[in-house]
């Protein structure tokens, strides 16, 4: 079984969000980047399935410039076998999906896994685009993935419940909780990751379909209005008469 796991490089989850003075880009200064938390579910589940199916391989794929390599190495340290980096700054979801599809086209991957979205762009788009570009099913978002031969049984989240879906390989799956418990690399993994292959390939030439014109922060809150705990019922009156939300 060949697994391809797509990871993106995102600001640490505790990062204070600021932008460049022209508000056109995220301000990266002093920010630590991590593997997108949703992608960690995809990576760990692929490694678990590899361990359960001897002879399987896990390849990590990232669309990013050289500064993403520490997190690619981290993915290798967690247990992936090799990695591919498409040498391009991600422009939009369609651009990224095209790069992934171009790599996957001749790779013979059975299962392509990724997180349901990235915590920075929050697109929830790439998996569906990759599936459509390759003409294979996409299960999004999945909370459970089990494999038996080339048949997969998945639990897909729908509003208010879940669907149990069966598909045969190849397919794309976007992952979310509670798929698995993400792993952290151990010392042996970190040492071996240094020698695992990381191939850098050029991007395809296609243009993005969307462009960020400007970023903005939400308006600042006015400050909290405190209500005495002894007179807590007063809050309900304020929510009805002042905030008008109930």
């Amino acid at each position, binding site marked *: 079984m060949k697994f391809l796991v797509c990871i993106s490089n995102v*600001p640490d*989850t*505790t990062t204070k969000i600021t*932008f460049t003075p022209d508000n056109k880009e995220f301000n990266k200064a002093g920010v630590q980047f991590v593997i997108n938390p*949703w992608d960690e579910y995809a990576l760990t589940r692929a490694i678990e399935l590899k361990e359960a199916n001897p002879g399987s391989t896990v390849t990590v794929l990232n669309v990013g410039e050289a500064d993403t390599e520490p997190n690619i190495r981290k993915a290798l340290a967690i247990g992936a076998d090799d990695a591919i980096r498409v040498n391009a700054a991600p422009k939009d*979801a*369609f651009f990224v*999906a095209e790069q992934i599809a171009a790599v996957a086209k001749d790779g013979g991957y059975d299962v392509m896994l990724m997180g349901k979205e990235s*915590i*920075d*762009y*929050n*697109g*929830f*788009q790439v998996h*569906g*685009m990759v*599936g*459509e570009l390759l003409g294979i*099913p*996409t299960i*999004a*978002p999945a909370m459970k993935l089990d494999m038996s031969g080339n048949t997969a049984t998945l639990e*897909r*989240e*729908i*509003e*208010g*419940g*879940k*669907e*149990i*879906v*069966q598909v045969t390989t190849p397919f794309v799956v976007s992952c979310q*909780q509670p798929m698995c418990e993400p792993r952290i690399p151990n010392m042996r993994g970190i040492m071996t990751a240094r020698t695992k292959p990381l191939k850098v390939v050029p991007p395809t030439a296609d243009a993005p*379909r*969307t*462009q*960020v*014109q400007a*970023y*903005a922060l*939400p308006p600042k*809150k006015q400050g*909290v*209005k*405190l*209500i*005495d*705990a002894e007179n*807590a019922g007063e*809050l*309900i*009156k*304020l*929510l*009805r008469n002042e*905030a008008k*939300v*109930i």
Partner: protein
Amino acid sequence: MSVLVVVECDKGEVKKSSLEVATYGAQLAAQLGTTATAIAVGEATEANLAQLGEQGIAKVLYDKEPRLKDFVNNAYTKLIATAAQQEDAKVIVLANSNIGAAVGSRLSVRLQASLATNVVELPHTEGGQFVVKRGAFSGKAFSDVVLSGERKIIAVKKNSLEAKHEAGQTATVADFSAQLTDADFADAPKQVVMQDQAGGVLLPEAALVVSGGRGMKGPENWNLIEDLAKALGAATACSKPVSDVDWRPHHEHVGQTGITVSPNLYIACGISGAIQHLAGVNSSKVIVVINKDPEAPFFKAADYGIVGDVFEVLPKLTAAVKALN
């Protein structure tokens, strides 16, 4: 040229988020000088579909294929793409739901359309540009995004605008067939399992949410959360540590890696307000925080707060809601 609105139905009813999307689509059509047509997915009744006229929809297309009752990605994509081509739709509007986003991304490739998800306002279309405002950085920012190309797809964030209800207006419901084949249903679900929703309110759709954290001290105390939620007609939710220790199911986990919600009212009980939790709720219109620790960071993001013991405060709030009703 028209605007095509995708409305999701469940057990015959049009979902609340789809009523919002229908309103958005009708307003956008008026802005563009055209009309809004809807395509219904899921289990619908013609009477309920006709009521989409109240949101400003002129015509609703409905394919009676019974296998469309449950979500099937390939079949839904083909159905909507066929409708978009028939109606010559230049803009397709969907809900930013699990269904909307999953189908929207496949549709964007099939129709060679640009796509924006998580959209919170009507687009700006002056000067020949098409610019949408969308949430980014897990609700910590917004971005204005230019959509290029002849065809656009917009997935509208829930609770971003209120659904219009113009009594007496009805839409024409028209039979529609996308000529779906067995192959289109290859990824059909084998089984659909619905979860228990406290008070019957779906968390992702809810306008009011009551949420508990570790300060609730254990699952045996959740009746206090549920009592208030029931009195308000709200959904219940929880923080990540609570779902991690199985006090509450994962589908109630709100936060950066859980469900992102944007209700009119979010009441956080015994939740300190880690930045990852805030990221999932900070686009709520009004945030109430109840915590006995006055230094809890959540108070900085709150509109109203009570420094006090949740076990004493929650029953008082429930009683006050009942008294009001």
